[in-house]
């Protein structure tokens, strides 16, 4: 994926959701987390990778390639093949992305039959197998979504995403509506699936703490731009970009002390990004002259780590 711009256009204004974003998955079983506040373009990024941006959104610039073929130029039929089989997505509100009048097993049967010439009974057997892998027992497979708890629905959606053994799985905030205990289960389920199947995982979240033991690499996004990338172990303990630093300092963990907490001046309103100054300038505590005159670009600062900041 290189140099992608996506904008959302309404009658009054157009909003650049992604601003010249480049990013790649070098090999299979590569795991990366995308972190950022709401409105930073993380979900748009996931949607772009599936070429699933719908009006009023539009991919203005750039291209997205998968194994050498341009996804953005694919027609509807090629896309149907590509989605699910190569790249699948677990949506944010998986609780609501299941059809309420369909049995859980039928969701998977439908996907399997749509994408292969499996017989109904074979597909059903496979569906039950898949559900079993995510810890849903056979006797629950024919229940309807409303009979499942939130965590179970989320597992079902993960089973669905894995149905055609894709190479890449995009998980968009799969746990944000769940309790911590269930969240931990879903994360360890994802982790095991990814390890066993040599999947590449793109995990989108606004809680940086979830990434710690799930992925190896992280991308931090701010206002539609990537501000920092690097291995998670380095990024967490020695952030390069002041925005990453801010994200980490506002994190509430059991170890946090009230006294160390400072009020953060977070951006409250959308403003257009400027061309000739740093996008983080208004909230940055390190800002100096150059930050006001020149927009920093994302460049390698240490081996394997990049950030867009003039401080380095």
């Amino acid at each position: 994926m290189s140099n992608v711009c996506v904008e959302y256009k309404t009658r009054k204004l157009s909003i650049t959701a992604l601003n010249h974003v480049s990013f790649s998955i070098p090999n299979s079983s590569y795991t990366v987390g995308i972190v950022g506040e709401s409105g930073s373009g993380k979900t748009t990024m996931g949607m772009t990778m599936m070429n699933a941006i719908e009006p009023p959104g539009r991919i203005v610039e750039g291209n997205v390639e998968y194994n050498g073929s341009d996804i953005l130029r694919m027609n509807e039929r090629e896309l149907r093949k590509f989605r699910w089989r190569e790249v699948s997505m677990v949506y944010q509100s998986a609780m609501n992305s299941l059809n309420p009048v369909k049995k859980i097993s039928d969701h998977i049967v439908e996907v399997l039959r749509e994408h292969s010439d499996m017989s109904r009974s074979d597909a059903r057997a496979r569906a039950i197998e898949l559900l079993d892998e995510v810890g849903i027992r056979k006797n629950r497979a024919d229940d309807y979504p409303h009979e499942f708890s939130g965590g179970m629905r989320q597992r079902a959606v993960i089973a669905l995403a894995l149905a055609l053994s894709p190479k890449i799985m995009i998980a968009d905030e799969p746990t944000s509506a769940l309790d911590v205990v269930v969240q931990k289960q879903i994360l360890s389920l994802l982790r095991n699936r990814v390890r066993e199947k040599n999947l590449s995982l793109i995990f989108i979240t606004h809680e940086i703490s979830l990434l710690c033991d799930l992925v190896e690499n992280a991308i931090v996004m701010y206002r539609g731009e990537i501000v920092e990338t690097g291995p998670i172990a380095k990024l967490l303990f020695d952030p390069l970009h002041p925005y990453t630093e801010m994200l980490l300092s506002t994190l509430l963990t059991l170890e946090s002390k009230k006294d160390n907490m400072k009020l953060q001046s977070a951006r409250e309103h959308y403003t257009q990004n400027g061309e000739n100054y740093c996008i983080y300038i208004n909230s940055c505590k390190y800002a100096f002259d150059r930050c006001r005159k020149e927009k920093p670009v994302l460049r390698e600062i240490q081996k394997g780590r990049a950030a867009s900041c003039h401080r380095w």
Partner: protein
Amino acid sequence: MSSMVVGQITQAGENGINPILEVKDLSVHFNKLRGTLLNRRESIVKAIDNVSFGVNQTESLAIVGESGSGKTTLARCIAGLNLEFSGSIKYRGQEVRRLRGNRLINYHKEVQMIFQDPFESLSPRESVFSIISTPLKLLCGENDKHALHEKVSKLLEEVGLNPTAVMFKLPHELSGGEKQRVSIARALAPNPMLLIADEPITMLDSAQRLNILLLLDRLKAERSLTVIIVTHDLASAKISADRVIIMYLGNIVEVGNAGVVLSKPYHPYTQLVLDSTPKLHLPSASDKVSEERDQGVSTTMDEKLRAGRGCIFNPRCKYATDICLQVSPQLLEQSRLHFAACHNPLNKDMDASVN
């Protein structure tokens, strides 16, 4: 070790501090119809089952539990929004359910609630001014336009918003954090004594979360409010509360000082939630151990998991012994002001060796 039931918890509070609110034997049961049209059975969901606790003046109390544990129902009962309960809720010694007329209006003035989802709790067709001035008109009888305007802008300033910028905006024009600030301003409008915040930060980004928590903290100090925070996030409970109540399937399983409960819990459920809370560290050997430990614990929330008899947590508890399957444990004071409902409390041996 004194064994004191939790009904006496309020007396057990620091001497000289009066409970502002007393909840005693509160139960809320919802009837659920199941089965076909002709073969209809009624099943009862016990959202809250015999819960007793007290809230001291100017303390901040966190009620923690997973979804389905009854924490929101409890908050709604206290706010007077759900009157279908048995047991008693007393506010300053008066039975809330019996309040009528001016006394009821006064109760609503003094006890205000902030709702979970600012995206849904604000009417999309009302301006910020109209949202905040409604309680002023209805509860405080303020009808003068200028006075209203002045009060609303003062409230907006207090919650950290710029009055001229947001006063006549509609909720969809505000960000999540701003919306939550508006709902806090609305709750503060009638000058309450007790503020109930139902998951005030769940829907927000991490930076916004911290800001809202700090705002609540500041308001609590400035207005000497009593705050009840309902949450499922232990980290925020630890930061913002003096005391926590841990709820599980409609029952209180542990009560005590926030710092103590969340670092050295007695109840296995509290330990389970603590272990599951995301931490900022890299995978290490100890994780593998805790993962293995988790394997035995089923974590699916299911009404079927409610044990027929004995301790309600026994189907998920890895420490369950025979007595847990037979006898339901009482909420007992295990150490000073730290109550837990468990036959085999954790971390107890440590206490003994210290003593």
